[in-house]
């Protein structure tokens, strides 16, 4: 409702923005009428709710296609990018956080802190462009934008390029898929690495204050075993929580990164939709983000049960 209201209260509409410069006023008026933009806002809202009740998000003004169809086509690209960004962030951030906790107050800890703060502070569009300039422009290691090079195709099985390439044995496509994923995934991951590593560090330090850890040390248990059996399991819940929250933020936060890297996901789609006030598409995508966010939180809650044995035992 908020998105619907905000978009409609702002001056200007899709007819103004989508029609060409030399469109006549009559043409603009006709288009407004055809799209129902000339009706009072409460009637438009009623129509929107009525359509929503039938799971019909309407048709995009810009793409002239059903909103559900457009989101369905683009969502896999966003989920794939977010998945690899998260994977990269976790693989890097958790060991870094543990290392910083174990080396608390030492140079390694300070370095990790600087990296973390930098990652969180730097805006992703700026980081993305820097990465492109260096890895693509200077080193020529990775392509600058897009999802696959021209001429490389993947049979569509799941919609996820790397997974489809793997399932169909298209090794060239798999290789190119990862090359094209590298920079946008790294851009997204950098911001998360900072947050996850800081939470991991704090959680591990907290867990290290527990009496059973001192007991384990007193018993002469090896450092590696203490980390694996006592610190990490106890530090896991806050880390998993923050990963869950970050994953939701990651999917919605990928909008700018997708635009910078011309990534064909729903972030780019949302950017296109907002820029021309394509209301059905904008509200549809925002609703999708909301559903994804809620679903992820539910999954994280379920995941707690596996991480924390205390929750497994309680039956109300």
């Amino acid at each position, binding site marked *: 409702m908020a998105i619907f209201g905000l978009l409609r209260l702002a*001056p200007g509409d899709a007819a*103004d*923005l989508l029609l060409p410069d030399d469109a006549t006023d009559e043409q603009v008026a006709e288009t407004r009428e055809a799209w129902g933009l000339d009706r009072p806002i409460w009637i438009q809202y009623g129509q929107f709710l009525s359509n929503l009740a039938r799971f019909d998000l309407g048709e995009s003004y810009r793409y002239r296609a059903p909103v559900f169809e457009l989101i369905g086509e683009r969502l896999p690209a966003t989920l794939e990018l977010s998945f690899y960004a998260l994977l990269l962030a976790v693989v890097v951030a958790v060991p870094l956080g543990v290392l910083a906790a174990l080396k608390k107050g030492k140079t390694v800890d300070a370095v990790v802190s600087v990296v973390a703060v930098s990652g969180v502070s730097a805006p992703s569009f700026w980081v993305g462009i820097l990465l492109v300039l260096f890895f693509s*422009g200077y*080193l020529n290691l990775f*392509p*600058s934008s897009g999802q696959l*090079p021209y001429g490389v195709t993947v049979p569509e099985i799941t919609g996820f390029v790397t997974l489809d390439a793997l399932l169909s044995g298209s090794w060239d496509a798999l290789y190119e898929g990862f090359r094209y994923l590298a920079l946008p995934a790294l851009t997204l991951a950098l911001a998360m690495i900072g947050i996850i590593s800081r939470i991991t560090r704090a959680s591990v330090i907290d867990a290290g204050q527990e009496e059973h850890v001192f007991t384990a040390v007193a018993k002469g248990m090896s450092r590696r075993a203490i980390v694996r059996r006592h610190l990490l399991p106890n530090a896991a819940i806050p880390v998993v929580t923050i990963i869950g929250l970050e994953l939701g933020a990651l999917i919605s936060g990928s909008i700018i990164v997708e635009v*910078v890297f011309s990534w064909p996901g729903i972030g780019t789609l949302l950017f*296109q939709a907002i820029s021309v006030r394509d209301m059905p598409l904008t509200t549809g995508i925002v609703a999708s983000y909301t559903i994804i966010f809620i679903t992820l939180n539910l999954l994280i809650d379920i995941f707690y049960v596996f991480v924390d044995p205390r929750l497994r035992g309680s039956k109300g």
Partner: protein
Amino acid sequence: MLLKKKSILAGMMAAAGAVGFAAPVVAQDEKLLMVTSTFPMTSPTPYAESNAQMYSVWCQTYGCLGRYNYAEKEYQGILVDDWEVVDPNTWRFHLREDLVRHDGGSGPTTKDVLHSYDRVMNDPDSIQKNIFSEVETIRAIDDHTFEIVTKEPLASLLSYIFDRFIITSAELADAHENPDEEAAHGWGPYKLKSYMLDQEIALEKNADFPGTSESAPDTAVYRQIREAEQRVTALMNGEVQIARLIPPQLVSRLEGNDSVKLVESPSIEQMFLAFNPKFEPWTDVRVRQAAAHAINKDLIIDRFLMGLADRLDGPLGEQQICYTGPLDYIIDYDPEESRRLLAEAGYEDGGPEIEFMTASGRYISDRQVSEIVTQMLTEVGFQVDLQVPEYANLTAAMRNGELPMYYLGRGLFLDPSEPLSQYLETDVTQRIGYSNPELDALLQKERQTLDPDERCQVVREAAELIAEEVPMFFMWSHRLVHGVQKGIDWEASADGEVWLADVEM
């Protein structure tokens, strides 16, 4: 330390080369041309977009009546080979008879023309009705001859329709439920190979098109890359061969690159300041002239736009049809004259307060240019409130005549007839709110004058009047800068579009 850094970088580059990462992504195919695109690619329906790039793509694939040759300064046919004015309201066109449809079907006929006209006007996806805003009807004379009847005499008819009226097959439309996706066959010099929404459009050469050049690309891919930095990088590392629309601040990145050359062209987009006489103080022509005298266009072009703009002194630049040399009435930078005019208009004790709206990021350095203009106006005494609304709000307010002063651009300014009418003719639109019976009469007269020389004389009179009255103060046309890989010959035209037949590889 520096040495160590360089060694690390060198090592990384060597490693990259060793595993083959550094090889260009393209160039498997000798005649594959990758071109960047900044426009949205939102629908395979040729009537669903209205921008210069998509008109150019569909014109080269389905086919259009023809195109304007900027070098020769004349219209040249693509699907038509001849046309004439039958009477002041009727133009007759003759379709070529030597064309074969991409799928082997017959050449274009008047049935296809009428079908296409119907789609432009009635297809729910069409947003191109404006090209026929002055057209009464289209009628077939025979299989290869048709006439366009205009509502009023219209000397500039070709500028409305020639490269924008896309002809699609009536036969294929009858045979397919969704012909744009199932049977996208036309008669143009290139065939549509694939269309990926918001990603890329691939075309392949139609060898059957008469006069097809061997050196033109076999396959061309328009790849959407919106960010200028990415376009430059993609060109430098070989992902694309033509990177279009390089902004001035990035030109230097390409200048020192051995594998890339810069191709520059003028443009037909005119940047201007609008002074809306429905608002104070713009009701007074002296205040409009004072504002114009305060702006040092040459300084902005030289210092800020790095010389990449062509100064305008009225609505006719060298690229416009009917340009017949510099106007007699030119408002030069003259701050003293500006102050004198303001004093004469009653502002000797302090300039008028004005609201000035500009876009940001829509045109090259638009917000920054407006900030400079603000400073220049302030220098002579104006008290300027510069506002940068979101573009959607700006354009809506502009269309509704709610902006007192603004800086914007007008594309597709090839023939001045339509843009001048749109902005300055009484009650045609509310964009500026200017009304002058003398100008209205001149604009009406130029539309009715079918003799080109006579017409251009009338257009010039109108341009002189506009330059003196300054409801619009024409600033410049940005020069279009494109990065092109060496080994590719392409002379960019003022529309900025890549006509593939003009490219030599």
